Structures are given as C-alpha cells and as structure tokens.
C-alpha cells in the first residue's frame, strides 16, 4: 500500500512547483462623494535591475461606444508612461472592465499570460488608480522572486485605493 502513495507524492511535487503564483487583492474603497465613477486601475510589475515592465491588469470602461473609454487611460499617468502608451488596446488578458466597490482578488501564474516568464530579481508591484471627477493614487509593493515560502506584502491607500495586498507563493 505504501508504494503507490510514494508514487503519488512524487507525482505531486512538480504540480506544487507549478502552483507558484502572485495573488493580488485590491480594495476599491467606498467613497462618499457627490458624483461617483468607478476608478480606472492599472497593475504592473517593474524589475529593479532590468527595468522591464509587465502590465498585469488594466481596468477601464470597455463598454463605451467608439472605444471612448480609452480616452482616460492616460490619467493613470505613471502606468501610461511606463507601458500603456506603447500598447494597443484592448490588450489580451490585461484589459478588463472597471470594478465596483469591494475587494477584488487577481491571480497571476508564472509561465502564463500576462505574467509569462518571471525572471529572478527584486520587483515592485505598482497599483495605480485614477477616477473621473476624483483623484489619483499609486501604491508600491516590493517583493523578491523567487521565494521559498509564501508571504504577503501590504499597502494601504488613502484616497482612491483601499487595502492592497500581494501574496507571493513559491
């Protein structure tokens, strides 16, 4: 009986290494304002040494006629400068609709789009939010890849973003 179980465990090992992932939780805060619009949000990675930028997710208004929603992408200024302005929209596996107030969890797996290859090194995850008739805020969450044990980095927004966390799992 032991033998098959051992086989089973060894079979599981490659599977568990494939479970490496980045889990990001972004809170869209409830704001008490006269005119509320859902924020545009961009999430991207910056590699400290190579400067390589990887856009992970961009939430904007995809449903407006004539792609009018793209007009405001530039308001996420740092993301627009780092990556957005060189992209053609919508971007597969990156573009998505704006999201309502609440906590939103996104999972990114190395080797899969949009993360794809994740070379070793020090990274920054940036989360930038901009809101029509509102403000703009950028949060930075540093991490190092790869990791030996799962751990979480947290940041707290003050205006346009609420709690943001990143869990990196080996």
């Amino acid at each position, binding site marked *: 009986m032991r033998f098959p179980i051992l086989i089973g465990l060894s079979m599981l090992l490659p599977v568990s290494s494939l479970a490496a992932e980045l889990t990001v939780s972004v809170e869209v805060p409830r704001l008490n304002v006269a005119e509320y619009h859902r924020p545009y949000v961009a999430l991207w990675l910056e590699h400290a040494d190579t400067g390589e930028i990887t856009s992970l997710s961009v939430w904007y208004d995809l449903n407006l006629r004539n792609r009018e929603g793209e007009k*405001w992408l*530039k308001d996420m200024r740092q993301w627009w*400068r780092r990556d957005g*302005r060189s992209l053609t929209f919508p971007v597969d596996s990156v573009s998505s609709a704006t999201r309502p107030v609440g906590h939103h969890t996104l999972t990114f797996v190395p080797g899969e789009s949009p993360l794809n290859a994740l070379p070793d090194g020090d990274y920054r995850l940036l989360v930038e939010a901009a809101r029509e008739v509102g403000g*703009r805020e950028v949060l930075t969450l540093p991490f190092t890849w790869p990791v030996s044990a799962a751990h979480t980095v947290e940041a707290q927004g003050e205006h346009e973003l609420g709690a943001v966390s990143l869990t990196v799992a080996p």
Partner: protein
Amino acid sequence: MNTTATRLLLPALALGSALLLPLTAQAHRGWILPAATTLSSEDAWVTFDGAISNDIFHTDYAPLRLNNLEVAGPNGEAITVHNAHTGKYRSTFDLNLTERGTYRISAVNTGIFASWEENGERKRWRGSAEEFANAVPRRAKKLEVTEFSRRLETYVTAGAPDKSVFVTEGTGLTLAPDTHPNDLFAGETARFRFLIDGKPAAGASVEVIPGGMRYRNHQDLETLTTDEDGYLSIQWPGAGMYWIGASYDDDQASRRGARRHASYSGTFEVLPD
C-alpha cells in the same frame, strides 16, 4: 470651419505688431496653450489657445495671429487645423490626432528690423527680406539692421512620444530635445538643446516660468543659459504648465553687418510623479 494652415494666410498687413512685440516690449509673452499634451484615445482631439499676454497663460493683451500657424504630424506631414478663430484676447483652434506620435504646433515669424537716422530723426522699419532693399536706404546714417526670427511652439502626443517632428535644419531658434517635452515629470530634470539655424545655440538666455503667476506674488522666474553645445538642464520645481522663453543674439546674420536675433517660446506640461 475647416482650414488648413496655408488657408489661414491673412493679408501681410495682418503681420500685426503683437507678433513682433518681444523686440520692443519684454513684458508681453506669446504662447500656444494646449488643453492637454498627453492623449490616450484613438482619434483624440485637443483644443488650443494662442495669445500674447502679460501674465503667462492669462489672456489679457492680444490674440496670437494664426496666419503663420503650422502643424507637423508624426510623419512630418502638415496637419489640418479645425475651428480656427481669433477673438479679442485669444485665438483658438482644434487638432484631431488621427495618428499616434508627437505633433508640433508652431507659429513662426521672420523678417528684418532696421533703424537709422534721417535729418536728425530716428527712423524705424520692419518687414520682409524682399521689401528691405526698397524700404531702407542703403547708405543711411547710423543704420542698424537685425534679422529676426520668432518661434512659438508647443507639442502634443497621442500614444507614445516620438521625436520625428524635432528637425535640426529649422530656421531661427529651434528645440532639439534630449528629454521629450511630452514626458516631463515633477522632480525630474529635463535636458533640452537649442539650435540656431540648425547649429548649436551657445549662450542663449532661457527663462522658465510656471503658469498661474497671477495667483502668486512672485514671477518665480528662473533664468538659465545654454552651454557651448546649446544644451541646458531644467529641474522642474513642481507639476503644471510652464512657459519657456529662449533668446539668442549674435552678429552672424546672412546679411553683412546685420545682427541676428532669434527667440523661441514653448509651452510645456509637467505632470505629478
């Protein structure tokens, strides 16, 4: 109204004194102010104001005449200006950015300024190089001749900035930027280069003034000088619209014995980091 830059040509008389003011009245500054410099949509529109004013970006003196307005698109082609209008204190026009890249908006004026003495009286004349021979007596007493070039510019970018509109063979004082003018951020240093008739403009005097001077007690004017290769570095104190005025003088005019005077005024947007 749809008008191209060439169709905006007005009678030569409309080369109003307002456009030539910096030769005489330093307080008046010309500018073209875009409502936005960085655009993200396909088929974006930008609206512009153009004026000569005392306070930067505050329309209090005269409109910019649009007769010499030229717009170059990312491929170098001339771009059609829409809805051109000249009012009491400002001109306005719109641009449709159908291609991705950087657009240069310029109003350029060139000519000759001369002064001399006739019967003990100081005479002044201003006009084109072609008219000069007939208008100014060659052997006039105390004749002083200045070839001038005046350039007002601003730039807008749809998508990613590119530098194809910054040509080096321009006439007068032109901008050949290392740092793209549509990629300026507070706290960063921009490196610009000025050329005079396509060659490095050494020793040009450059004023940097943040907009909104009406709402502060000081001009907050910074004066810089280009180095021997025409370069200068600008450290932006904060985000906002900036006016930059460069002025260059020497005796290397194409006409013998004449002075060469060139000015450049640009509007730049600096974004918060």
